């Protein structure tokens, strides 16, 4: 075979590459449009924590654009989301980050994080791009351009346990199960700390299962073998929460269930019963909840957002449907404050004064002890329980207040599971 790749071709392509590499890294505004990268799993088992977020962002963008867009020092800009499906794969996430920065000119990139962040971190280090994650366990002193402004997963799970202990003091024993991955393990450490702080005894070591598990009957048999008062489902994906709940129902469990999420809980009710799911505690509200109309809530028109979301995507509301949009609220406010979409300027404006307007109220930039860097926005978080078949916010509880009392327990268990920032590989 005769190669067509001549010396001249090589020189041409090299020159083009060199010139393009020398172009400004951040095409902050292309025309009058600001592009935001959405780098999350849109397909695959973890898609439930990516795709609903993108759907929410589309509604957010339409609302912002209709209201005049983002107002920077040199004029107003429309906002446009550019998505890349990383399939929760670090290598694909890295490719996606590079594409979103170099080809699409993204000014800010939102991620789910977790297993995909290590793939992206070299790109972040090299380009200085501002990224967000939903999983602050990605944070470390080295991740200076990574922020966790929406949720402090899994730390907010302490609020559910604390509420349960206060409101149902008769519950004295618990068991926990989780998939063995970057989401499951820090959450186990958090729940263990919360149960210990609440004086609830763990009956057994946490039961880990392979993320490829499809039949949960053996897991549930083991979990309820000692008749625990509480079964904790940790941060299991919805693909696991549903069959585990169904098995708990079928194997006759009648105690309390607590979980980080309960996405599509109406389907769990359909597979079990309304009575079985009554009192199920988790951490993510439906946004038609009247409690979200309180003055301290910063998310704009949560009830209207929820109604629009359900109109477009019936039955698909989940834990992350609002979260990426709430990050955009913070980013927009910071960009308008800075008058620029430049990542450094936005990050500085966002963290100015050490406080930020989180969806659930004013919160602190926090995290040095746990993450080695104050890049997590932490404040109040709702405790949600299913009542009469509907998710209902029972109370907003302060994560920093819990941490002030029991932070040593959290550090102890995080350390035991190698989840402190200086232990993660």
């Amino acid at each position, binding site marked *: 075979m005769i190669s067509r790749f001549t010396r001249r071709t090589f020189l041409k392509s090299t020159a083009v590459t060199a010139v393009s590499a020398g172009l400004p890294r951040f095409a902050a505004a292309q025309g009058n449009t600001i592009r935001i990268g959405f780098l999350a799993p849109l397909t695959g088992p973890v898609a439930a924590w990516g795709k609903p977020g993108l759907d929410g962002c589309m509604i957010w963008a339409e609302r912002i654009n209709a209201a005049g867009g983002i107002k920077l020092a040199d004029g107003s800009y429309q906002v446009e989301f550019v998505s890349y499906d990383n399939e929760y794969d670090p290598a694909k996430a890295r490719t996606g980050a590079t594409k979103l920065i170099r080809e699409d000119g993204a000014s800010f990139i939102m991620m789910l994080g977790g297993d995909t962040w290590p793939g992206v971190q070299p790109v972040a280090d090299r380009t200085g791009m501002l990224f967000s994650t939903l999983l602050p366990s990605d944070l470390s002193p080295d991740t200076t351009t990574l922020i966790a402004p929406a949720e402090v997963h899994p730390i907010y799970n302490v609020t559910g346990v604390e509420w349960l202990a206060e409101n149902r003091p008769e519950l004295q024993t618990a068991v926990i199960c989780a998939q063995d991955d970057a989401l499951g393990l820090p959450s186990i450490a958090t729940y263990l700390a919360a149960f210990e702080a609440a004086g609830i005894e763990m009956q057994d070591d946490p039961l880990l299962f392979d993320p*490829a598990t499809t*039949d949960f009957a*053996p897991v549930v048999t*083991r979990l309820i*073998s000692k008749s625990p008062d509480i079964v904790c489902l940790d941060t299991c994906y919805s*693909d696991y929460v549903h069959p585990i709940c169904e098995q708990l129902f079928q194997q006759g469990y009648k105690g309390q269930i607590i979980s980080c999420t309960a996405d*599509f809980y109406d389907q769990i009710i*359909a*597979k079990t019963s309304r009575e079985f799911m009554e009192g199920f505690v988790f951490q993510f509200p439906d946004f038609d909840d009247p409690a979200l109309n309180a003055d301290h809530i910063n998310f704009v028109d949560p009830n209207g957002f929820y109604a629009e979301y359900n109109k477009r995507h019936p039955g698909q509301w989940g834990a992350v449907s609002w979260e990426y949009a709430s990050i955009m609220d913070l980013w927009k406010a910071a960009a308008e404050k800075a008058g620029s979409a430049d990542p450094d300027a936005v990050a500085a404006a966002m963290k100015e004064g050490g406080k930020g307007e989180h969806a659930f109220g004013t919160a602190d930039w926090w995290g040095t002890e746990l993450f080695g860097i104050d890049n997590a926005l932490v404040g109040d978080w709702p405790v949600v329980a299913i009542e009469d078949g509907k998710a209902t916010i029972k109370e907003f509880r302060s994560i920093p207040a819990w941490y002030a009392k029991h932070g040593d327990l959290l550090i102890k268990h995080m350390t035991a599971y190698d989840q402190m920032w200086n232990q993660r590989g």
Partner: protein
Amino acid sequence: MLDLLAQTSLNAVYAASYISLIAVGLVLIFGVMGVINFAHGELFMLGAYAVVALYADMQLPFLMAVAAGLLFVGLLGLVMERTLFRPLKDNPLGGLVASIGLLMILQALAVLGFGVRMEHVPPVTQEVIAFSDKVRLPLARLYVIVAAVLLLTGLWYFLKRTRFGWALRASAQDPEAAALQGISITQTARIAMFIGAALAGVAGALTAPLVSVNPHMGHSVIVTAFIVIIVGGVGSLEGAVIASVVYAFVHTFVTTLYDGVIADIVGLSLMLLVLIVRPTGLFGSADRA
């Protein structure tokens, strides 16, 4: 403790039932056609989606949806035999690569047709047979066990007592000798592909209300099926059934007594042990391996 052992045994019997349906189909296809069908897990997935479409969405009776799933996936097997495996019958590696390509296509089609999120399949029944407070067998699981026993018994009868079955076994043992005896290798390949695919489809259809139905659900079952057929002996139907039972009991008991991650390690170690001690598998012969 007795309750725990009894419940775990019931869980293991259920697991053995659906695993054996999948593994036997995979072995049948390999035995007759010499093709390692990596898309077998996706046939399982399509059977589950048949139930999603017909039972959950169109609200047809569950058994009708299962029968349609069996037929649909079986017919898809015929299409695979004609368009992929027959043209590549002299190229086993080509068949393997084609099946990997098909796996991705079927997953993508499922995503396009149904979306990425798991599908909700209403329970067929919430009835439970309670042997005691802590030993319970949901009726939906019993259906899977009974169906697996009936289907595998039917397959055994077909292979041992009918002329088509003899032809199939003869083709699997020695295709050239079978052809010299007037047996159509093409015809037996078609039958094997239909039955093998249909068994995977019916396993997916029967278990759809009990698992998370999503486009990627075939991945874990194909890994389990490969472990099982290696332990049982590649090409041995009896081996596949017995290895399914052994694997299901080992995996289920280790999950219950230790945890699921250790159970996976033990399952793989079991396969390695068999490969070291008896490389042809428990019931395999050197010719088939």
